[in-house]
């Protein structure tokens, strides 16, 4: 076993950690917030705000 064999194991381990972190956070987020909030984004928000400010 040389350094590169250890690096191979390290790469597998780190990949699993990054994947797990995303998966756990994803499940946590989806169960904490409602779908309405999570998918409420609409395009043109900045432009709409600028227009709103102009109107007042």
């Amino acid at each position, binding site marked *: 076993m*040389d*350094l*590169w064999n250890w690096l*191979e*194991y390290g*790469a*597998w381990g*780190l*990949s699993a950690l*990054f*994947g797990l*972190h*995303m*998966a756990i*956070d*994803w499940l946590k*987020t989806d169960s904490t*917030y409602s*779908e*309405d*909030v*999570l*998918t*409420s*984004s*609409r*395009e*043109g*928000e*900045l*432009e*709409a*705000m*600028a*227009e*709103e400010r102009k*109107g007042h």
Partner: protein
Amino acid sequence: MADVDITSQTMDGMGPHGTKVGLLRVLGPAHVWALGVGIVLVGEYMGWNFAVGKGGAYAALIACWFAGILYSCVAMIDSEVTSTVASAGGQYTQAKHIIGPLMAFNVGLYLVFAYTMLEAANAITAGYLFYVVAQMTGHAGDLDQRPFIILVIMFLAWLNYRGVLATLTFNLVITAIAFIAIIVLFLSTSGILGGGIMEHAALFEGHELPYGWIGVLAAMHFGLWYYLGIEGTTQAAEEVRSPARALPFGTLAGIMTLLIAATLTWYVCSGVLPWEFLGDGVNGSVAPLFDTARLSGSTALVWLLGFGTLFATLASANGCINDASRAWFAMGRDKYLPGWFGAVHPKYRTPYRAIVFLVPIALIFALGAPLDQVITFSILSGLLGYTFMPLNIILFRRKWPLETIKRGYEHPFHPIPAITLLTLCAVTFFAVFLGYGTQLVAMIGFYIVVSLWFHFWRYRFVNRGAQFTMPWPKPRGY
């Protein structure tokens, strides 16, 4: 957008709306530059040299500059439209507003495929680089490249998941190092700093255009590689603090950087490496800048260009994840795809479902498909996207003339850049057909099939009114 009342019934938009969680506006022009140049710069480190194999060193230079004109047109057109349609999705969103839903659906798919394939190709390349370094440092036996390929994709997806500012700041740093490495190599080998090792006259003699002018035409296919991906800057549109300033500034600075980097790369590599070796990117020079550094005899240059190659590869994969996920997210938000993909993370403010969904797709291509096929699919999807752009800008100017909507940037000499771009796209399609005719026909067949699916099935789910939330006046003639 003076004199525009977005609550008016005559407006194209829906007025102020209830975004509770949206993408975060934190980026500046430097991040836009890092996104565009970061995706592309790997093409200078490897890939462009196949153009030398197609038609010799001069053909590669001619292709470099013609492709440079093509991409300058792309950058100018994109800067004008995106500084106005400042929304995630980039060209997909432009097509939706300016041409129509079927074009938008196709352009969205071109973007997702082009970037996801390029991400997979970069991950394969990074795995190969680790393999080479292991061999050079005396590793006994073959290194398993798979864990490194997977790590690259997982780490960069995780970074993208956690926030756009850190993601593109990371890209800024590694892209700047990769670009500086090319400048240092040029200064060190051209004779400006110390002794030069350039042998252009000797290397070119008798090989000026080994396959004649048809070789020049064939080289155009890989000439795209010098700049492929600069149009990705548009995907940052919804996350920059000032779209009207940052997008044109970052994109145009990006194409200037790439024109310099591409020309220097050609000059340095073709002056040191024989064209037969340089033009064979599989059995000859896989990474020409790195090979040039090795021939310079300087250990410092070998290390610098070695890191430059790795950083350019990572920056490209990172930018591709950012861009593919924004395009996928925008299509989900408008229900061109299931609306579930249109979610934004409430803490990190990123399109987290789109990012995670594209990870296994990138992994499948990175671990299961040959590199040349992955790259070809990416180039062809990109080329279809460029063909859409001239039509897009011509219709944009016609439907919304300059006096109706204020642009962040107005590109000069319209319609000359659009016509030039369309002509160069036609030439490049012919060049691609010469080398990859079967793939070109197969891919066009694929897009025809998915278009039929969209038209006859998916379109019924699209948010037909709610997809247009830009406060624009009605288009002229409607």
